[in-house]
């Protein structure tokens, strides 16, 4: 089976500083791929390159190839906005709009031109159910999203990303600001979502990577050190640096 997304010889610069160096990696469909590594290793940069969020960073330059279903994401005729509709994103810090719960989830649909109220309502409910938030908010969809707890806000952000029905969901340390219970719920959700979505998650918690992912990529100093099935990476790493990192000797 061909990879859902893939990079070939991908390098990313911020000004004259190279943040990612020559990364070649396949993201499998309907699987969870975890990116791990110490702070500043380039894992977040790599993630943001996949849906062209780095286009917005001044001085950022991308070299190499990123493909989505075999199609070059950075191709000359490819619109970054169209890429981001297919490759959604959940951020480290939950960032709901200061609006109602309903309007948060409906945002992506509205900007895509969906007007019909019933369709909108149905899609909002479906997305909130997918994000395991529906039962907690169904009676107060008109309330401000900022009134929700941290964990609920993050699930709302996931619901908001799912509402536009992306094919790939990128998650940048989605649980790093949450307590253990909220984290467990997010992890459960990720395992649930991979049946229908391709998920790439950045995490600094190796336990989390081990719990939720099918594949793990270890980044160090902007390079991809090792990539493979999660179980193998954590039990029989080939590279010495991977072993040192996962056994907690540095990072």
């Amino acid at each position: 089976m061909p990879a859902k997304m893939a990079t070939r010889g991908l390098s990313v610069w911020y000004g004259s500083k190279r943040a990612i160096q020559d990364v070649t990696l396949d993201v499998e469909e309907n699987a969870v791929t975890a990116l791990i590594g110490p702070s500043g290793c380039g894992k977040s940069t790599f993630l943001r390159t996949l849906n062209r969020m780095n286009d917005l960073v001044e001085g950022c330059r991308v070299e190499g190839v990123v493909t989505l279903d075999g199609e070059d994401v950075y191709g000359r005729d490819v619109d970054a906005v169209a890429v981001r509709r297919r490759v959604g994103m959940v951020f480290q810090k939950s960032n709901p709009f200061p609006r109602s719960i309903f309007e948060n989830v409906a945002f992506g649909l509205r900007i895509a031109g969906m007007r019909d109220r019933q369709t909108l309502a149905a899609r909002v409910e479906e997305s909130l159910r997918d994000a395991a938030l529906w039962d907690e908010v169904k009676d107060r969809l008109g309330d401000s999203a900022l009134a929700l707890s941290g964990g609920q806000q993050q699930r709302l952000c996931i619901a908001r990303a799912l509402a536009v029905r992306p094919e790939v969901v990128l998650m940048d340390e989605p649980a790093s600001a949450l307590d253990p219970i909220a984290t467990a719920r997010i992890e459960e959700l990720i395992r649930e979502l991979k049946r229908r979505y391709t998920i790439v998650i950045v995490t600094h918690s190796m336990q989390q990577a081990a719990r939720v992912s099918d594949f793990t990529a270890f980044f160090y100093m902007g390079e991809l050190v090792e990539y493979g099935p999660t179980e193998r990476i954590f039990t029989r790493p080939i590279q010495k640096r991977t072993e040192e990192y996962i056994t907690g000797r540095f990072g």
Partner: protein
Amino acid sequence: MTRTARDRALAAATGLCVALVLGMLLVVVGEIVRHGWPQLSWAFLTDQPTADMTGGGIFPAIYGTVALTLLMTVAVVPMGVATAVWLHEYAGRSSRLAAVVRAAVHNLAGVPSIVFGLFGLGFFVLFLGGSIDDLVYGDPTRPVWGKPGVLWAALTLAVLTLPVVIVTTEEALRAVPRDLREAALGLGATRLQTVVRVVLPNARAGILTGLILAVSRGAGEVAPILFTGAANFLPYLPSDLRDMFMHLGYHVFVLATQSPNVEAARPALYGTVLVLLVLTLSLNVAAVWLRSRYRAALRS
């Protein structure tokens, strides 16, 4: 001198300066309120001036000031906000053009207001108005647009207050968290959609503050409207964009220097100054209040 003595001397000197400033403010405001207050009445606010402006009220001046300021607002807000949006959302941080525009905006803010008045006369009244007349009517002896009027005065004031709106709007845009922009863009919003649906709504309190500051600055300026539309006295209220108008600030000038009987006009003068002062002061207070509320909302 020992260190503590020096400290004390400095404290005394700065305290004296503060007292001086407060004292001057108190004398100015106190004088105006003392003389102006007895003059205030419902009739003063709603009547026409009579008896060479020594009697009656100042309603036409209030009306003219409000009309002028509203028109100015309609002109300055879209232009100022659009400029700020371009500067902050579209032009890159290293854009040369943006640097030039910013420098121009700051220079604009430093231009004396009488220069704006002359610019308004030359550009809006004579050039723009005159050109319309040439094109449409072709009779230079009977100008329709090419003469001072409330529209030209409002546009002149809009140019004067443009820097205030641009600077405060840009500040408001800067205060919108990057997170929210990324959230919108990550959902497939275009830049324009992000600006219109996320950035501007979240900056509206800041933009409103800029607007109020612009209005309070514009409402008190006399020099820019001197040649572009203000009238000594008008027997009617302006009803057309091309009509001239009376204005509180200009009315103060007229009462103080142009009246045939300065002594007799004095009570009306104090009353007018008080009204003008209350108007601009309350606008400033509203701006400060809005801004503090906005900052508090951002922090939480």
